[in-house]
């Protein structure tokens, strides 16, 4: 079953077309990596899925339910308010710049959304947060403020914070791009273990090693379009599209 499916999603900022007819789907349990040159619209696509950007036209399905249909910047159809909130929370998101809440401790960062958006009791939220922090290897930092942590640690807290809402799919928007090179590994290993545990993931990344090892499918995007989509072996050893070849040659 496709957790997320898009049909002909287009997005333009004024005259600039950022996404052009993006059609793709992510099945339950899939780990999908989106690669491509900067300005390809990868991040915009991810942000459009979770409604941080509004698409110009196209359809988005979540759980095979038509979540949003747009045409010429006008809403054609959307699910009702409660369903909208529920479906949005099936997605968790990890940002390039972490976006932790700096005035809250690590533990409060993780418990805040379950307590206020889901009305989970404080004790329950705390138990769950501690086990998630243990999972990302940071239970001993629970009472620190984010500013005291390294970038890698902050990003792992951000992953735990997103997981605390129990999403069905995790969206990663270049989660390691803002990190010092020696801190990239710890975040990638958390992501790998998440993938191995069966979490559905859609990640925009420049870490080709991660895409090769962890992904079930790799999507190559350029100029707002999906140019190639295949399994990692084929993508990295025998790319079909000349743009893909050119891109992979330039970075590998």
């Amino acid at each position, binding site marked *: 079953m496709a957790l997320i499916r898009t049909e002909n999603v287009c997005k333009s900022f004024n005259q600039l077309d950022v996404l052009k007819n993006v059609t793709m789907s992510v099945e339950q349990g899939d780990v999908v990596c989106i690669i491509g040159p900067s300005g390809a619209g990868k991040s915009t696509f991810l942000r459009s899925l979770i409604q*941080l950007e509004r698409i110009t036209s196209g359809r988005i399905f979540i759980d095979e339910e038509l979540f949003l249909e747009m045409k010429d910047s006008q809403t054609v159809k959307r699910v009702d308010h409660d369903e909208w909130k529920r479906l949005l929370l099936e997605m*968790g998101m990890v940002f390039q710049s972490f976006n932790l*809440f700096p005035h*809250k401790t690590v533990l409060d960062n993780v418990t805040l*959304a379950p307590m206020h958006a889901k009305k989970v009791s404080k004790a329950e939220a705390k138990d769950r947060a501690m086990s998630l922090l243990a999972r990302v290897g940071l239970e001993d930092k629970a009472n620190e*403020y984010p*500013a005291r942590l390294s970038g890698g640690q902050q990003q792992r807290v951000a992953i735990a914070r997103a997981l605390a809402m129990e999403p069905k799919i995790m969206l990663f928007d270049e989660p390691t791009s803002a990190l010092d090179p020696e801190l990239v590994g710890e975040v990638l290993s958390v992501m790998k273990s998440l993938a191995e545990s069966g979490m559905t993931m859609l990640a925009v990344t420049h870490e080709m090693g991660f895409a090769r090892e962890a992904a079930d499918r790799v999507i190559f995007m350029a100029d707002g379009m999906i140019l190639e989509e295949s399994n990692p072996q084929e993508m990295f050893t025998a790319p079909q599209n000349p743009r893909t070849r050119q891109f992979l040659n330039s970075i590998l």
Partner: protein
Amino acid sequence: MDRNPKSSNKKLKRVAITLIVILAALAALALTKPDRETITASLSTTLIENAGSKYAETYNDFFVFNIIRAKDSNTAETDTYIGIAGNMVNVNTGFMKTLGNVIIWIPALMRGAGVTIQLTMAAVCAGLVLSVFLALGKISKIKPINRFCSAYIFFFRGSPLLMQLFFVYYGLPQLNPAFAINDKFLAAFIAFSLNSGAYCAEIIRAAIQSIEKGQFEASSVLGLSYSQTMRLIIIPQSIRRLIPPVANEFIMMLKDASLVSIIALADLTQVTRSISSSSSSVVVYIPAMIIYLLITALFTFIFGRLEKRFSVYQ
């Protein structure tokens, strides 16, 4: 953490100990202080005899400090003594006379300062509450709310506070007698808090808009509503950024409060002006300005502490 909190704590402790020692010494002196009759008896008797029935006596007594002045209302001749715990010194001439005058004025100046502080605190606090709504209104995307708040802020920042005060006190009753505000303090409070609300709204708006966009995005993807985002994420982070400009607003308002002397509310400036005209001397401006400086120093100290408290997470 650039400043060492331990060293500043030590300094504070030293100041506190010094104050306690001084207070203890004064308390001991106060026990030995003679009563008013004994002090009055130390006045020279010649002036009292000459003045006859036109004699007037001023006695002030704060803690261990005493001041007594005899005045012949016919000749305006005075005989003044000041002292500590009954040890009176004659201050009829020269520098001592000025000092004696200043001490006599202090109770009146303090009452004026009390009015000034109350007005400033009340107006800025009320203004802050008002300004939260104005600021949220001004960043709101709902057109009528946005327009109203923008117009309000434009009006109160763009016209002189003095005119606003005049309008509330003298203008409103002319529009409709039902709006008459007979209490001068209340009129000043209304005008000043409406004005302060506009200034604080801009401070709060700037602080909210200085919070990174990522904080809104993270809140949104975690399913927090707009009001939860504001209440739990954005406003708590804005508070630390608010403190320095709000401290500034307090200090500005403290000095703007002197405008109320125009409607004859007995604030520090008004008291100073009336003392100055009745004593035909401008000396009273010196202690008055020192009192203003002391109040400013107190505000600065309190806000400095607040700022440190709210910086724990940085």
